[in-house]
């Protein structure tokens, strides 16, 4: 380990610095410069994150790469960073996604290029901050800050109904997180003046406040994930967001909610978590079954993938509240895999949208005739979305189902319906868009993917296949942390 080297700070602030540099290029006269700075910044951001994986000690369950400096002395607020086996993979996922998003928007975005690229880089740094913060106020600052770039991305580069979607997204998530701040302040007083998340973990609490805190956290995280029934902002946000926005939203921002459950709800209020586990599992299963069904009849491709995202995230929350290693590690794997797959699915829709400017399934048909290479990539990602073994989509679902059956056969039963519904909505859409006779002269004239699009999709395809065939390295870094978490949750705090 690079002792004392502030690696996490670098990972957080390097993209933000580059983002500001991109913004500084100004108007679209310098668009090419903005793109070049953005791609170098994001690739550099990924490169500096690699030592995080290589030098991570998988056998330790403590926080690694820790940094701690006083921030606001009066309130005991620290600039305190550190990662464990739960946050480290998510930071890697985020750093991995950013260059792809920059590449995906390369020549598609022609207006306010510097602001678009800058927003993504800044958001990338902020999200790294969310995952690395060990101080509640620092966490809260990053958490809320992450809303702003996404609000702008949807509101400026979005579709026709972008203002409604942006405001819905902003209010929904902001209202959710306000109660979380209240909970932090309560915990600050109970803990005799500490905002350290690790102190919160050790804090004994009676059951009533635990339940109230759980509900406060739940509102914040459930909106982010999103869980049924607070999911309705997501389809709207996805439909209006530009492709890059959708990718980051699905691949990264939703994971903040999942991460919140693991970092806050489970360890801080373990007794309430266990008491309310039944409710959480039922909500998760509703997400899997109900949302899976709703996805089937969607006519808009992006809406369909958005609903499929909600259904897949249902596996994440289901896995958390099973309180066994299969469930929690499976949920983590599902989060990372969903980052690849949903990102790739939105990119595929983006490829079509850039050409025909329609997301309606009915406007397509027979795309394979003019875009065979694209069709092959889309097939792979569609199959991954349907949870085919050998792709990353299978691994997490498999682990969570194995964990669920240990708790209750019927949990596994309802969770496993995704095998059917996931295949129905994904492959039915694929059939109507890609197969069949050529639907229109416009479809006939489609150009197959460019080298740039090929590169982005190929990188994701390799990630999806690699994780499906050999998920061992990813889960290996989680074991110690997850075991520690499970042992911690099993100890009552009453």
């Amino acid at each position: 380990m690079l002792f004392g080297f502030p690696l996490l700070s670098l990972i957080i602030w390097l993209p933000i610095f580059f983002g500001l540099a991109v913004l500084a290029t100004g108007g679209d006269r310098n668009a090419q410069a903005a793109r070049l700075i953005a791609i170098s910044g994001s690739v550099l951001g990924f490169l500096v994150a690699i030592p995080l994986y290589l030098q991570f000690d998988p056998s330790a369950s403590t926080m690694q790469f820790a940094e701690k400096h006083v921030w606001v002395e009066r309130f005991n607020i620290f600039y305190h960073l550190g990662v464990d086996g739960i946050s480290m993979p998510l930071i890697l996922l985020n750093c991995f996604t950013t260059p792809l998003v920059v590449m995906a928007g390369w020549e598609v975005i022609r207006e306010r290029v510097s602001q678009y690229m800058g927003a993504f880089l800044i958001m990338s740094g902020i999200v790294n901050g969310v995952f690395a913060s060990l101080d509640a106020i620092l966490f809260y600052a990053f958490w809320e800050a992450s809303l702003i770039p996404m609000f702008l991305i949807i509101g400026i580069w979005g579709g026709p109904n972008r203002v409604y979607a942006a405001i819905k997204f902003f209010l929904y998530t902001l209202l959710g997180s306000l109660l979380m701040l209240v909970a932090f302040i309560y915990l600050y007083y109970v803990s005799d003046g500490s905002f350290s998340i690790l102190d919160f973990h050790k804090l004994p609490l009676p059951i009533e406040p635990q339940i109230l805190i759980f509900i406060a956290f739940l509102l914040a995280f459930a909106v982010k994930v999103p869980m049924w029934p607070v999911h309705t902002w997501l389809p709207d946000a996805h439909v209006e967001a530009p492709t890059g926005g959708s990718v980051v939203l699905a691949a990264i921002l939703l994971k903040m909610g999942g991460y919140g459950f693991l970092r806050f709800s489970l360890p801080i209020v373990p007794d309430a978590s266990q008491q309310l586990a039944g409710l959480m599992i039922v909500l998760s299963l509703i997400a899997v079954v109900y949302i899976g069904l709703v996805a089937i009849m969607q006519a808009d491709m992006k809406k369909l993938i958005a609903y499929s995202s909600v259904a897949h995230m249902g596996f994440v929350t289901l896995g958390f509240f099973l309180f066994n290693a299969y469930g929690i590690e499976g949920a983590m794997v599902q989060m990372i895999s969903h980052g690849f797959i949903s990102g790739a699915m939105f990119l595929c829709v983006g490829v079509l949208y850039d050409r025909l400017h329609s997301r309606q399934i009915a406007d397509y048909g027979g795309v394979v005739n003019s875009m065979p290479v694209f069709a092959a990539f889309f097939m792979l990602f569609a199959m991954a979305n349907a949870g085919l073994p050998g792709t990353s989509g299978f691994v997490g679902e498999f682990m969570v189902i194995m964990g669920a059956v240990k708790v209750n056969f019927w949990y596994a039963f309802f969770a496993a319906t995704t095998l059917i519904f996931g295949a129905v909505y994904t492959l039915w859409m694929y059939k109507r868009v890609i197969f069949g006779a050529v639907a229109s002269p416009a479809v006939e004239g489609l150009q197959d993917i460019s080298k740039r699009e090929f590169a982005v999709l190929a990188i994701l395809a390799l990630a999806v296949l690699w994780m499906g065939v050999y998920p061992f390295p990813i889960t290996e870094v989680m074991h110690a942390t997850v075991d520690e978490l499970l042992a911690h949750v099993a100890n009552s705090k009453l």
Partner: protein
Amino acid sequence: MQTLYLLVPLAPLIGAITAGLFGRFIGRTWSHRITISLVFVSLIASIVIFFDVLDGNTFNGSVYTWLVTGDTRFEIGFLIDQLSATMMVVVSLVSLMVHIYTIGYMHDDPGYQRFFSYISLFTFSMMMLVMSNNFLQLFFGWEAVGLVSYLLIGFWYTRPTAIYANLKAFLVNRVGDFGFLLGIALILMYFGTLDYAAVFSSVPQMANESVELVTGSSWLVITVICILLFIGAMGKSAQFPLHVWLPDSMEGPTPISALIHAATMVTAGIFMVARMSPLFEHSETALTLILIIGGITTLFMALVAVVQNDIKRVVAYSTLSQLGYMTVALGASAYSAAIFHLMTHAFFKAVLFLGAGSVIIAMHHEQNMQKMGGLKKYMPITYWTMFIAALASAGVPGFSGFFSKDAIIEAVGFANIPGVEFAYFCVLATVFVTALYTFRLVFVTFHGKPRMDTHTREHLHESPWVVTLPLVVLAIPTIAAGWFIGPMVFGDYFSNAIYVSSQHDAIEQLGATFTGIGGMMMHALSTIPFWLSLAGIFTAWFLYILRPDIPGKIKKWMLPIHTLLDRKYYIDEFYSWFFAGGTRALSKGLWKFGDIKVIDGFFVNGTARVVAWTAMLVRRFQTGYIYHYAFTMIVGVFILITLWLYQFK
């Protein structure tokens, strides 16, 4: 030897990747050369391994660790024993023949390289499935062959029927896999491992464990697991009521109908149950279910085959019925007979399909038998190989199908599992029906007067050698594979791989009467199946050669029954109305009502409206007019004074 094990699946995988990713650059000829040689490598390796296994060298070991979670290691590994070695030889042999046949069949197709890539990928997946030593890899292979089947049924992706059929196939299989995955989950939960050997060795301790899935009704754990696993087998091996995808899968090119939808993939369910014999032997309930499902599939699908006119569909329904035979054999604990029939069926059904394909090429892609006739003199090799396969299929003594089918029927006769009477009736009655529809196919297609138009007739000729060679090669085991019944079914060939409990000793009893293949043939002359089979062939000859005017009259006379069979018992209509339509309606209802009306309309936008309404209300108090404020003050003061005065009363 372990390198050889790896070579068997990896060689075709390399071929698939080469033809799939680089097919454009290396061209058509090199694509088929590379894939065919690599499948040939796989076949040679399989044969070497097969003889090595005969010498007693079995293997069970892991290749790499896929995942570790909780206290479980999930590994990818191989189990090489008599069962897997037999399957490996059958799969690679049929696959190689189909690869060669494809050169001729797909000659003019623009998707030539893609097709070779898919069938090689299939060979890889199927090998992973049969060579697996654990349930996880089994499931991987299971779904991977399903994927390739999906890709190949929809190979001609501009045809609406093809892309309907492939979606249907994948989804129906997913219903089966749903059960299968839950079965695997229960195994992991109760046995703590997914490794075959470890699971099988602890079955006896688990035999009496029970579970209450619904409060008040207690089930044996093994029974629940077996039924769930069998649901998976019902999907893959197309057993009633999950059989509906197989006939439609005929939309795919004929070589894959032979390879995937007859000889190999659809038998994966049979293979799986045989592999799981140590589990199934502990659950009579599951065995009974298997017998009943198998019996229904055997008889009722055979009946449908009699009225079909599409040559491929006749063979497809015949496949369903033959799979039913294998399933019945499993239910009767005659696992070795099931695997034996799987093997002989792979050969004779591959010949029937490839022969049908040869006919279809000659007929310029006409598949309706009523427009054929008299093809015998134009296509002698196709005719004679198909004739041999028909004899095997009908169970005429001496041909491979006779031995395997007779063993199944006799074993069912000896079995004592509840439900066996029904299954026995079904398999017996089907002997007649099988002979009838098989020879109907042969007679209508190859004999009688030519019914095609003159243009087609002038161009009729035998197919090129790449098509006929596989037919001839596969015709040899179609005749001879049955002669190994002694060691394979009654001997101890499968004794390490298949477990039969001492109570279910049908095969053992049957084996006691076995006196060699000659004796078996002699004995058959005095049993009902033989005469039923002859009667079937005779009826076909009478109806379709001697008096071709009669079938039309029978059809008119029994019109309701004919319609029922022709419409396949209306099962497809029911499914598309009830399941597909029901799901769409439910989906639309949940979306339009649940999401849009209740959640978004009432709660989300409702909250926004309440906020707006409150704001409107509060705004009224701040009009900005001084006389409004003055008036409010006067009213307030008046009230306060009233209350103040009221105090002194």
